[in-house]
């Protein structure tokens, strides 16, 4: 049965298929037995080859087969007992235990009720063993959900249960016992999944029944957001449920969630559509009209320094001026940091940057393509103005000033500027943590940009590394060809001559790899350092002022820090010693240190 081809990564159709199996089992007991055996074999294979996502789906499928009278409840409880006893294993990675507990807990929404009805004493024991394991784990959230579910006597309202309609047939069926299932032992090659980064806008008390949201960069998220769009559209009428988010602090999860969803909806359509859709009372949550903000726009601004140059530039660019002509016009712009001015006037001059970038972006505001063309055409000017680190930071600041109403435009411009090396990744990281962006720090688009920046850095390192490996392989092939030749006349000089270019290339690439890796490490260090500074400042302020540390802003930020660790854990693993000795030292506030320590525990 090609179950996998039909099911998507969510479990929404799972109960349809289990119902079908249930009905077939009621007709033909042997079929049911063979099917269960086949599922168990599939589960074992998945665990052997580290396919944990598939394994979780299989466990859920099996547990729902209890609801369909295919599998006897006591044998399912026995399997879960074997899962939970993994926590008693010695010398195994914590992530192994975490996974087995997760597999057990995450099946309970489907089968908790049935198992409790048949084997309540055993289930109580399992849950209390789980509780004592779970004292400080990322699984906290799921544990709390299950506890609440238990308190509600396992009443679960989200999962579709078609088998209920066939109860009269299914209750007559003979059930099977699961064969005893021992979790395959831990081996050197076993690799367990990291806890998935689930950035929760809500905590479990807001939504105890919801399925877990997929990662924000994934395609699955798009499917969910489409659904959310429909839900919001159809639930606007239920103002009583949502209207409380109007009276709350806008940083709280509920109103923030609404604002971010509306912004995403706008990106997929257009501003006026959202304004028309959203009731007047909710307009405070509507996204801004994504228009360009040009500071030299009209005559009333003529007293601004650089205004005349801006006009000059506008005319020149419209008349297809070259980079040189632009340099010529910019030469006349005074430098507010007068003492740094050298003869050519090309040191960091914030006013030059401001006038040029504002004017160009304004002229190219029509579309992404127009802006990209502008960046390409005047690449030379950009590179020169942004040569220094302060220059890069200032370019980013001006881009933000011009396009602060259009986060999507900011994101694509930053992406393009990194790719064309107008700015570098560290500059973007520093800009994100700068005071100018403090107001937007908890908005989604900021994190889109940061994670996209980190990904670009990672891909760059991989790319150069691959080039190096490919060139090494070419050299090896060259040697092999030479060795297999029957030529007796080859002397050292001709060998060197042949190998020379490739060896030089390898040396250059080796340097390039090292340089890229160093840049990558620096990027992460900058990010962690800025996080520590930001969070420490908040913690100190709260402690001296005697106010509660756990503001919505703080919760959001500390979890964003966690997200960095979890989302890029493979790369960060390389830096553990540096992080421990340089940044996450014992003097750090325990709130921040705890995040690092939890991450270390996952590596153990």
């Amino acid at each position, binding site marked *: 049965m*090609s*179950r*996998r*081809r039909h099911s998507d990564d969510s479990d929404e159709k799972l109960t349809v298929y289990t119902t079908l199996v249930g009905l077939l089992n009621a007709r033909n007991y042997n079929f049911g037995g*063979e099917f269960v055996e*086949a599922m168990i*074999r*599939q589960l074992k*294979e998945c665990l052997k080859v580290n*396919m944990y996502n*598939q394994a979780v789906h299989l466990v859920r499928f099996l547990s729902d087969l209890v609801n369909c009278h295919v599998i006897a409840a006591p044998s399912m409880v026995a399997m879960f007992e074997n899962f939970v006893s993994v926590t008693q294993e010695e010398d195994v990675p914590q992530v192994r235990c975490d996974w087995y507990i997760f597999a057990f807990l995450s099946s309970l929404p489907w089968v908790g009720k049935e198992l409790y009805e048949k084997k309540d004493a055993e289930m109580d024991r399992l849950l209390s063993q789980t509780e004592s394991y779970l004292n400080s784990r990322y699984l906290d959230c799921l544990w709390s959900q299950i506890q609440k579910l238990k308190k509600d006597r396992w009443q679960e309202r989200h999962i579709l249960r078609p088998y209920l309609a066939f109860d009269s047939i299914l209750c007559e069926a003979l059930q099977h016992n699961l064969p005893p299932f021992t979790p395959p032992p831990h081996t050197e090659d076993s690799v367990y999944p990291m806890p998935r980064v689930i950035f929760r806008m809500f905590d479990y008390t807001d939504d105890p029944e919801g399925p877990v949201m997929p990662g924000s960069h994934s*395609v699955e*998220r*798009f499917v969910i957001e*489409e659904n959310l769009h429909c839900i919001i559209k159809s639930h606007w009428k239920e103002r009583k449920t949502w209207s409380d988010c109007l009276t709350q602090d806008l940083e709280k999860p509920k109103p923030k969630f609404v604002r971010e969803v509306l912004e*995403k909806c706008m*990106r*997929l*359509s*257009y501003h006026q559509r959202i304004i028309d859709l959203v009731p007047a009372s909710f307009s405070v949550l509507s996204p801004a009209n994504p228009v360009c903000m040009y500071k030299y726009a009209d005559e009333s601004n003529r007293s601004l320094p650089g205004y005349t140059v801006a006009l000059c530039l506008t005319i020149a660019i419209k008349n297809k001026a070259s980079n040189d002509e632009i340099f010529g016009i910019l030469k006349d712009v005074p430098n507010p940091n007068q003492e740094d001015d050298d003869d050519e006037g090309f040191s960091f001059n914030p006013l030059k940057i401001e006038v040029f970038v504002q004017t160009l972006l304004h002229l190219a505001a029509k*579309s*992404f*393509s127009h802006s*990209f063309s502008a960046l390409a055409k005047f690449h030379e000017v950009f590179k020169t103005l942004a040569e220094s680190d302060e220059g890069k930071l200032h370019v980013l600041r001006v881009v933000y000033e011009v396009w602060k109403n259009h986060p*999507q*435009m900011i994101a*694509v411009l930053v*992406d393009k500027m990194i790719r064309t090396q107008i700015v570098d990744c560290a500059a973007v990281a520093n800009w994100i943590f700068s005071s100018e962006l403090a107001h937007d720090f908890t908005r989604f688009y900021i994190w889109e940009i940061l994670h*996209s920046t980190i990904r670009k850095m990672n891909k760059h390192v991989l790319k150069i590394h691959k080039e190096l490996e490919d060139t090494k392989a070419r050299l090896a092939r060259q040697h092999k060809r030479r060795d297999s030749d029957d030529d007796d006349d080859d002397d050292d000089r001709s060998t060197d001559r042949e190998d020379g270019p490739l060896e030089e290339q390898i040396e250059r690439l080796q340097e390039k790899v090292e340089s890229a890796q160093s840049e990558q490490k620096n990027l992460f260090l900058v990010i962690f350092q800025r996080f520590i500074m930001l969070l420490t400042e908040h913690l100190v302020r709260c402690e001296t002022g005697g106010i509660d540390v756990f503001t919505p802003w703080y919760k959001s930020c500390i979890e964003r820090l966690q997200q960095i660790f979890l989302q890029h854990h493979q790369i960060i693993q390389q830096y553990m010693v540096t992080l421990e000795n340089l940044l996450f030292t014992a003097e750090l506030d325990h709130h921040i240190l705890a995040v690092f320590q939890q991450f270390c525990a996952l590596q153990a």
Partner: protein
Amino acid sequence: MAAGGESSRSGRGAVSGLLSTTLSGLNSDSYCEISQYRDQHFRGSRQLQEKSLKVSSTLYVGNLSFYTTEEQIHELFAKCGDVKRIVMGLDKIKKTPCGFCFVEYYTRADAENAMRFVNGTRLDDRIIRTDWDAGFKEGRQYGRGKTGGQVRDEYRTDYDVGRGGFGKIVQMQKASHQPAVY
């Protein structure tokens, strides 16, 4: 599939075959196959065109509304990976969008995800269609219909408010109040 459908499988031997078949089914699928369409203006042999289609990371996107913007297209297609560039399809005469575009990714894998997950879904309330493209070349951004837009908008007879109303030929008929001359 063998003639007469798959023969029934029983016994233990078939199980790991089943696992590996279903799992390998996730790696290549019919969503990513090239279609029957071949660009008549392509410079090169059919073979070369087919070869290019099979390695391309550029997609043709059709059935867009004339009012759909590059920004909307970017937002949607960026869900599948980093977009390298978008080229809007334009009316050859008016130089305004005429309902198609090219989306180029940095990698083929990302383009394949778009073929799997975006093709056949809605943008601006319209079901859009994606297909492999051999690669954008200057000039290919223009409609090839006689009146400047896409060929399909010349001949269609329905009223489509997102694509300029009636098809061009029907519009001309209505304007001149004369039946079409065949």
